[in-house]
Structures are given as structure tokens and as C-alpha cells.
């Protein structure tokens, strides 16, 4: 794809031209990002006419740099449409029809259509390939029944990336297919999923006789796992690896909590907590340095195990940091300011470091579950990095319908 030659300066010039034509401080997000798309500066590695210029994906950083310098308003992809831009656009580009590419991708980039991913199910968490929602062919349509869970943004999404079982007689990986689901279709019921923080960041999605036209299947029938796996890999990389500044992030907040609360503790407690915080500081530094080392190794074309430990190490460390944060707060930990009334994520929890620490104490429990549990990550390290043998499998070469599963 990266076949068009363009110098950094040409790309900067092109970006400045866009800013001359339309000022993001004066128009709305859809207008500005629409123009950015038209100029091929949305995702520069996409083809011309589809928001890009066929350049190396690394060159997007040049465009973003110029956009940040040129105006006060800058839209982060992660805020605009994280799943749509990160997974939706690439999957449509790779597997979609020309018509889909023309109609869907631009609206993903502008944020007019938010996207979500319908993979996990109540009976299929770590073992996503064991999922049991069913899609049955009926004329030109597929009729889908089942339940999805942990669906970020489903409540405001226009499109969902759905993986559903189309043939239960095949082994589990082979009997799934991948669909684009219109979230406004009859039978799609989105409900907030109440979390231990009081928030609902995620949703449950119930699918009752939902009809999907056959042309909205991406890839062939039975290709669902293959199409899905590429997008899942992106999620894991995005969640791992802790970079950032020295002493920044959670450990920085813990240090500042300590500064304002240390004197509330007895001499012994103070000594113990001080050592705990120092241990966490060290691990935070080593997480940061290990990801630097991984980047250096990747750059030199010699990547080693240092790149694989980040997700596990970060999840476990962050949980410990916030646990320590509550120790530092002492009896103040009895109070939870935001309360538990069901609500969508809001700035409230991020108000000050005190409230934030308590919120994160709860929220960080999910760090070792989301995007690959720590147990799955340890399996991956053990098997793929250290070369240890896998568990004997009872679900590999048998028809999905014959694999034992809970209710």
C-alpha cells in the first residue's frame, strides 16, 4: 500500500493547506474531519480516495504534529471513535465491498458513525472462539440470536462488528462468520452493564431474531475467526506496555497522595508504606524501561521476550499501586464520593487525585481481566515465549456442539 512517494515536507505542506481551508477551532468535528478525509490526511496509509495517500502508516504522526501546531482543537482518534478507527476501518478496507468502503469508512473517521465490537459472550470470555450466538441463513438474510457482553460504546453505536456461529457441526474455530450489524436493526437491544465502580462503561447486547443481509458478511462463511483475530491483536498491543514519563501515571499520583497523607500514619506504618511505595516506584520504572527496551529491540529488528511481558506486568502492578493508594489514605478510604448510582462514565471520577485513587482502586480490578486475563497472558508467555507444552485440549478437533459448556 505504501507505494506513493511523498516527502515529510510535502506532507506538512499538504496539512497546512488543509488548515488554511478549514479551521478546526471554527467548525465542528464532522466538518473538519470530513475535510481532513477529503485531503487524504485522515489515515495516510489508506488508499487515495479513502482518506489516505497510500503512505507508510508512521507518516500519520507528521500530519498530527502539524495539526496540533496549527490549531487549538485537535481530535484524538481514541476519543472520536476508538473501535471504529482502530478495528472497523481496517476490517472494512480488507474485507468490505467497494460500496461499503465508500459509504462507511469516512463516517467512521469523522465520528458520525460510532462502532462497537460484538465478540465476547457470557459463555465465551477468554475462550472467545467458543461463542454460541447463532446465525442461521434464511433466504438472502442471516437471522441472529444470542447475547453479547462487555460491548464498549454499543449504546451510541451505529455499526457493530459481530462474530456469530453459522455452523455448530464444525470444530469451534471453523464454524463462525463475521458480520457488520446495523445496531438500529429490529431485535437489537442494548442495556448498560452495571460495574463495581457504579459506572456502566460497557453494555450487554441482546440479539433477538435480528436480520442481517448476506452481503454484510465479511469474508466467506466460516472465516469469522480469521477475520476477527487480526482486530483482536490490535487491542492487546494497545493495552500493554506502559510508556510515558519517568514517575508519571499511576505511580506519580501515588507519590503525591503519599506526600499529603504520610504524616497521618504511625512511625511503623510510615516506614512500611514508604518501602511499599518505593517497591512500586521501582516496578513502575522497570515497566517503563522494559517497554523502552522492547522498542529499541524492535527497531534493531531483534525483538525478544521484553516485548511480551508488558500487558501482564502492567495489569498486576497497577492493581497493587491503587491498593497501596488506599492504604496511604487510611480511614479516608471508607468514603467513596462518586457513589454507586448507575451512570455512564463521566469526568466526576477523575476530579481530583483523592477521588481518582478510590475510583481506580475499583476500576483497576478489570486490568487483569480485560484484553486477555493475566492467566491467559501467563499461558501465552509460557507457551509462545518459553516454549512450554500446552494443556491437553478437549475442544480442538470435535464439533462445537459436542464441546461441554455451562448453561
Amino acid at each position, binding site marked *: 500500500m505504501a507505494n506513493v512517494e511523498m516527502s515529510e515536507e510535502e506532507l506538512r505542506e499538504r496539512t497546512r493547506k488543509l488548515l488554511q481551508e478549514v479551521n478546526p477551532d471554527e467548525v465542528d468535528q464532522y466538518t473538519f474531519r470530513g475535510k481532513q478525509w477529503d485531503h487524504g490526511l485522515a489515515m495516510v496509509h489508506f488508499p487515495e480516495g479513502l482518506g489516505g495517500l497510500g503512505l507508510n502508516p508512521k507518516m500519520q504522526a507528521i500530519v498530527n504534529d502539524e495539526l496540533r501546531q496549527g490549531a487549538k482543537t485537535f481530535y484524538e482518534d481514541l476519543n472520536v471513535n476508538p473501535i471504529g478507527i482502530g478495528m472497523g476501518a481496517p476490517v472494512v478496507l480488507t474485507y468490505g465491498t467497494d460500496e461499503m468502503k465508500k459509504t462507511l469508512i469516512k463516517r467512521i473517521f469523522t465520528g458520525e458513525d460510532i462502532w462497537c465490537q460484538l465478540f465476547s459472550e457470557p459463555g465465551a470470555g477468554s475462550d472467545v472462539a467458543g461463542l454460541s450466538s447463532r446465525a442461521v441463513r434464511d433466504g438472502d438474510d442471516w437471522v441472529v440470536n444470542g447475547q453479547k457482553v462487555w460491548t464498549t460504546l454499543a449504546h451510541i453505536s451505529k455499526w457493530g462488528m459481530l462474530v456469530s456461529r453459522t455452523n455448530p457441526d464444525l470444530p469451534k474455530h471453523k464454524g463462525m462468520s463475521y458480520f457488520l450489524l446495523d445496531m438500529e436493526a429490529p431485535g437489537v437491544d442494548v442495556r448498560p452493564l452495571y460495574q463495581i465502580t457504579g459506572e456502566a462503561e460497557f453494555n450487554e447486547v441482546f440479539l433477538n431474531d435480528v436480520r442481517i443481509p448476506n452481503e454484510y458478511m465479511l469474508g466467506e462463511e466460516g472465516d469469522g475467526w480469521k477475520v476477527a483475530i487480526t482486530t483482536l491483536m490490535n487491542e492487546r498491543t494497545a493495552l500493554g506496555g506502559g510508556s510515558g514519563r519517568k514517575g508519571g501515571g499511576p505511580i506519580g499520583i501515588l507519590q503525591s497522595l*503519599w506526600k499529603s497523607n504520610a504524616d497521618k500514619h504511625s512511625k511503623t506504618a510510615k516506614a512500611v508504606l514508604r*518501602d511499599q511505595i518505593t517497591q512500586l516506584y521501582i516496578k513502575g520504572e522497570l515497566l517503563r524501561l522494559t517497554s523502552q*527496551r522492547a522498542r529499541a529491540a524492535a527497531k534493531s529488528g531483534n525483538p525478544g521476550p521484553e516485548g511480551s511481558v508488558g500487558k501482564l506486568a502492567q495489569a498486576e502492578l497497577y492493581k497493587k499501586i491503587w491498593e497501596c493508594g488506599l492504604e496511604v489514605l487510611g480511614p479516608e478510604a471508607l468514603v467513596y464520593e462518586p457513589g454507586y448510582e448507575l451512570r455512564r462514565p463521566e469526568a466526576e471520577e477523575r476530579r481530583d487525585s483523592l477521588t481518582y485513587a478510590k475510583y481506580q482502586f475499583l476500576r483497576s480490578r478489570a486490568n487483569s481481566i480485560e484484553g486477555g486475563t493475566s*492467566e491467559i*497472558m*501467563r499461558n501465552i508467555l*509460557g507457551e509462545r515465549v*518459553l516454549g*512450554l507444552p500446552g494443556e491437553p485440549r478437549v475442544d480442538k478437533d470435535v464439533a462445537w456442539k459436542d464441546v461441554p459448556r455451562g448453561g
Partner: protein
Amino acid sequence: MDFAFTDEHEELRQTVRRFLEGKSDEQAVRSLMATDSGYSEEVWTQMAEQMALQAMVVPEAHGGAGFGPVELSIVTEEMGRSLLCAPYLSTAVFAVNALVQAGSDEAQGEILPAIAAGQSVATVALVDAGKGWEVEEVSTKAEADGGAWRLTGNKSYVLDGHIADVILVAARTDDGIGLFRVEPGADNLKRELTPTLDTTRKLASIELSGTQATRVDKGGDQTAALSRAVALTTIALAAEQVGGAQMCLELSTEFAKTRMQFGRAIGSFQAIKHRCADMLVEVEFAKSAAYYAAFRASESDDDNEILAAAAIAKSYCSEAYFDITNATIQVHGGMGFTWEHPAHLYFKRAKSSAALFGDPLEHRERLADHLGL
């Protein structure tokens, strides 16, 4: 900081590894650890003549290779991997660093060329009986006696102190800490081999009772210079711990792949697999800590920064190494508890190297001070 190991670094690592695989296999380690001297003079000479290993951080002006902490750490990491029994940490690391940081030009010119050539075993007697590894804690007294000096005190945990032909002693004068040299044959000098938890590394006690000495430092208080030498030695020791930890991870993983119980390789059980995965995380973090400290020490002139990096490296690598050797015994089951399996050699080295040059708690306390916690 980009951890820029070069192709030359990788070549150095491979060359040292090949040499040690030939000269310091398990059998060699076991036979040398049973001796009092604790090393092979033949291999010591080959290390110098074939590889110039003792010359690593000796300045070129004194017959050395003039390398820095990064190259030295590569060498000590490999030595930790093979559990080399040799007076390397005492001679080529601690004594050389002490002389380079605190020694007079004359003393450097006198002592360093012989060290670089592998013709000398040197050590630094730092810790006074009942005291710690901080240079400020030194209490052995140095009193001027005409042109010479007389030292009085009891030094503990002196690396290879029973065999060293160059004995450097940190002692307190009226105007601070100085570095002195005592002749091995001096009157009123008693040296005794200490029975050690880890027999692959020899320690001695040294008793000084008005023992005659020569002052070998640059003059004035050497607390800062010697503290820097201790930090640089600590960083090299952290790399040694990484080498041992990596080796134990490999031993455990290999065993878990081949040991069969209940009709399966034990590494297929998650209880074992996950322990190995945790070891891997610890090894990778330990590498980051040790490598960062080595690069920092070679790039920075800021003592505080070097001390902080050394504190992170020593506290983390010590605990990681210990935990990994502990897990290595457990993964090997009953076999891991036998004398004939090497797991205990690494286990003992891990615990003893954790206690050398300040234990993890002390280093964290220093780091906490540095961070203003």
C-alpha cells in the same frame, strides 16, 4: 536512554560465554568451590591473556582496555550465568573502581597494570565488623606514623581477602575516609577465610592491629569517590545476578518441558507454566534495571543519579534472582533439593549477592530518600 547495545557488545557477550562454557562448567565450579583459594590460577591467567577480562575498566594509560560499566556488565552477567569461581568482583571490579575513583596516579600506575595483566589478585576491605556498606560507616582508624600509616580495626566480608596480594583498606583519618594499602606479609595483619553460605565466592575477615600501611588515595576525604566505586561495583553485581537468573529460568523451563508426571510434561500444567511465566517477567525487569544502571553510569556524571540507578538495580535484581532460584528448586521438586543438582549453587549465590553491597531494603531506603518520599 535507548539501550543501544552494539554488534560489538553482542560479540563480546558471545566470546565471554563461549570461554566460560569451556572453562567454568558445573564440574569446574564444584571443584573450585571446595578449595580454599576458590579459583584456578590457570584460568585466571587465560582470562587475562586470551580475553583481557581483568583489564575491562582499567584505563588505557595503565595497560587496560578503557571500557565502561556497560561492557563490564556484559562480562559480569556472563560470569553470573556460569557461576565463575574467580576473584573477579574483588580484583577487576571493586579494586579497579576504587583505584580509578580514589587512587593517586602513582598508586594506579603501580597496581593497575599488574591487575590488567592477570598477575595480581586485589581487594578492598570496606566493611567494619558490625557495620554496613555505606562508606561513611567506616570506623577502622588510620593514624600517621612518620611517613607511613598505622591501621587498627576489624574488616568483615572482604572479597577474596585471604588470598589477595594487593589489599586496599578504607580507613578513617582525622580528615575523613582514606584509601590505604597493606602488604599481605605485614606484621600485625591477620587474615582468615570466612565459612560462607555461598562457597563459590570467598570472603575473609581481616584484623588490623596497628598494621603498617601506605596511603594510596589522591589526598583528602575519599567518601564520595569510594561511594561512587561502590555504586559502580554494585551495578556490575546486579548484572551478575541477571546472568544467574536467566540461567535458572532456562534450567527450569527445560526441566518443565521434559519432566513427565501424570502422563504429561509438568510444564503443561498451569501451576508450573505460570510460575515460569512470572520468572520470565522478573528476568526481563531485572535486565531492564541492570542495563539501565550500566548505561546511566556510563553516560552520567551525576553521582545522585548513578546511586539511584544502582539502588533500583541492586534491590530489584537481588529479589528477582532470589525468587527465581527459589522457584527453580520448587520446579525441580525433590531433585532441586539435592546437592548434585546445581539449583542450590544459584540459590546460595542469589542470597549471598543480595546481602553484598547493601541488601534490597537498604537500597530502597536510599532511593526513597532520593525521591523525597
